[in-house]
């Protein structure tokens, strides 16, 4: 919890507290840690702390945006497919199987190579990758909930699809959906970080954690902290997000658990 707050705060407010501009050359390359430059300088002599503070911004935006959009699209489709079954369900599953078969990183690299690296294209790519996965989970849990007698009773008294989806299905599938959300968000973060490491994120001189790791690889023996700090931030953030969403899912799960053991 605290870890998430720290990382999110860094990523969101980093630019406001950073001592220098992210692309301002302030000294020689690979300078050691000093009072003036807390993380030293990078391979071009820019202030590493400032770049670190700027660098979380895009990862966070892309990851949250992409994962959020994927859920908004996938959960309703999953519920409808699971509840209505039939031809619609088969079609949805067939399409999602095709997307499933694509290797994520390669798919994104090809997409970005075609459109040129940009934030909207990256978000779109990650959404396309997430939708079938999220949809499958929503559909599977829906299938399970849909056999409950309260859903049958609702059909038997003539309630509409919408009412049943919103009042019977959605509230009862939220726990696993939230638990899954954290994992997907981590996935998005790592996907974007790898893209940017591979040079398909924001173009230089932009500051970006993934990019920083790759830029400063050459100096890893002289100034290892330049690569370690952003890598650590990415790792910490992923772990924190998944723990948080897990405990959130657990807490809403607990409030609904029956106690007739």
């Amino acid at each position, binding site marked *: 919890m605290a870890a998430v707050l720290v990382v999110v705060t860094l990523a969101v407010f980093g630019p406001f507290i950073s001592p220098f501009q992210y692309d301002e050359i302030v000294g020689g390359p690979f300078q050691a840690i000093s009072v003036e430059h807390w993380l030293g300088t990078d391979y071009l002599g820019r202030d590493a702390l400032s770049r670190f503070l700027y660098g979380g911004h895009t990862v966070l935006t892309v990851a949250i945006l992409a994962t959020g959009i994927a859920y908004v699209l996938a959960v309703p489709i999953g519920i409808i497919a699971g509840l209505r079954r039939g031809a619609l369900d088969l079609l949805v599953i067939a399409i999602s199987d095709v997307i499933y078969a694509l290797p994520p990183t390669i798919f994104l690299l090809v997409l970005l190579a075609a459109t040129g690296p940009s934030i909207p294209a990256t978000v779109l790519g990650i959404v396309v990758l997430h939708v079938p996965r999220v949809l499958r989970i929503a559909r599977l849990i829906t299938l399970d909930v849909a056999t409950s007698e309260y859903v*049958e009773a609702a059909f038997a008294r003539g*309630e509409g699809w919408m009412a049943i989806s919103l009042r019977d299905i959605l509230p009862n599938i939220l726990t696993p959906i939230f638990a899954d959300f954290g994992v997907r968000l981590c996935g998005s973060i790592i996907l974007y970080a790898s893209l940017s490491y591979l040079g398909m994120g924001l173009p230089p001189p932009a500051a970006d954690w993934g990019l920083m790791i790759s830029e400063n690889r050459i100096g890893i023996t002289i100034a290892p902290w330049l690569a370690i700090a952003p890598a650590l931030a990415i790792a910490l953030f992923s772990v924190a997000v998944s723990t948080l969403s897990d405990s959130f899912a657990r807490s809403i799960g607990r409030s609904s658990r*029956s106690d007739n053991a």
Partner: protein
Amino acid sequence: MPSTPTLVVDALNLSDLNGRSIVRDVSLSVNVGEVLAIIGESGSGKTSLALGLMGFARPGMRIGSGRVIIDGRDVLSLPAEELRAYRGNKITNVPQNPTASFSPRMRIGTQIREVLEAHGRDQSQCHSLIENALESVSLPNNEAFLKRYPFELSGGQLQRVAIAVAFITGPRVVVMDEPTTGLDVSTQQTILELIRKLVQTSEASFVYVTHDLAVVHSVADRVAVMYRGDVVETGTREQIFKAARHDYTRMLLKSIPRLQHTSTSPEAVVPQRPPSAAPLLSLQNMQASHGELKAVNGLSFDIAQGQCVGLIGGSGSGKTTTGRAITGLHTKVEGKLLFEGRQLPWRVRDRSKADLRAIQIVFQNPDRSLNPRESISQCVRRAVCLDASLAPDVVEGHVSRLLDRVRLPKRTWSLYPDDLSGGERQRVAVARALATRPKLMICDEITSALDVSIQASVIELLLELKMDGLSMLFITHNLPLVSDIAETLVILKDGNMVETGETSAVLFNPQHDYTKALLASALQLRA
């Protein structure tokens, strides 16, 4: 009777983690070859007590003070290692739900052998022990049977395996927790006979936990009645049934449904209405299947306006399928369904909203038929609101009237299903069914998940509703129960209708052998 009892429980206290007392100062003793029945309704602490005897505490529960002495040794004070050697060996357990107590992915034989190996029996012994155990519970003891998986066995067979496992180590104490509750009447009967036989031949003491007085009557030597964590009365079977001292015991005894043999005239109980000319619902030559399996084979019956038809059969007889088919929830059906003289399509989505509202169903298990995320009043309001002609300002009035009708206290209205007892939940389900103002209500075993005392009050409620003109299809395996409420009975066996007729005619003059067998196995109590 030997002078020293095998099992002595001395001032046992169990409490939950917040310190609320679940079982208070219980002291009992059971002799060799004796069956002590612990009886009480759900929440009385009887299962917690049974587990406590094995040194277990359910999640969220703690064993407070007290001693459980088996053959002179206090089990609760044993170190964990030694306690484990006791459990499943010297003191064994027959669980309530056999399907949940076997690992679904392991062969039966392996699961039995596991118990023996865990308690240090060597391979050569295992084989003959298993053979004897299976023989004693009348199961086939061949390799093919041992290689089966739990899902390939019926509930009754699994319970036999569970019993065999409980006896295989030559235990000193056997704890049976409602071992027949999940089974249908005829299977229940054979399992009880089996237990009686094993009790006679083994040298153990028995604790039998149940809420079913009829079962107590047929197996117990002595009875301990539990009420809200206290043992309120202990005595021999005769004492309890003939001269109960505690009010609660007397109340329990009174609430058992009985066949009306003894009452002067059945008509006095069942209000007879002159059946109107056209039946409300008429089922003609219905055939239903589950995949390849035929579940119902040419069933026909009528339900007259304001009448109740009892549909009776053992498990697998197709009675639940019939109820679901009439409601429109079973799709693989053929035959004709006439409702108010019109033919009704089988599937929910082909029926008009008005027709859907006119036929409502109440399911067996209220734990699964209520949305856990909806409060009681939300749940009923939803069903009320389906009638679009209702002005928004009268909706609340309707909801309150319905909840009052099923006698749910006002404090429960804002609660969620998890906060209610089984009986209260079932009342919510009834209120929800009534909310659409149905003409026909299908009650699918609606009392079988409930305690006897609560059962009686639900039946009373149904009788009241019937007086108001509601027609019903009452599906059950419990003959005595249905004799209180139904005018007509339909007896099903393996998907075929074997007998039908007026309730009194079927009960007092059964024609078919299966009906006779059902009547004979409906355990009877005559105080």
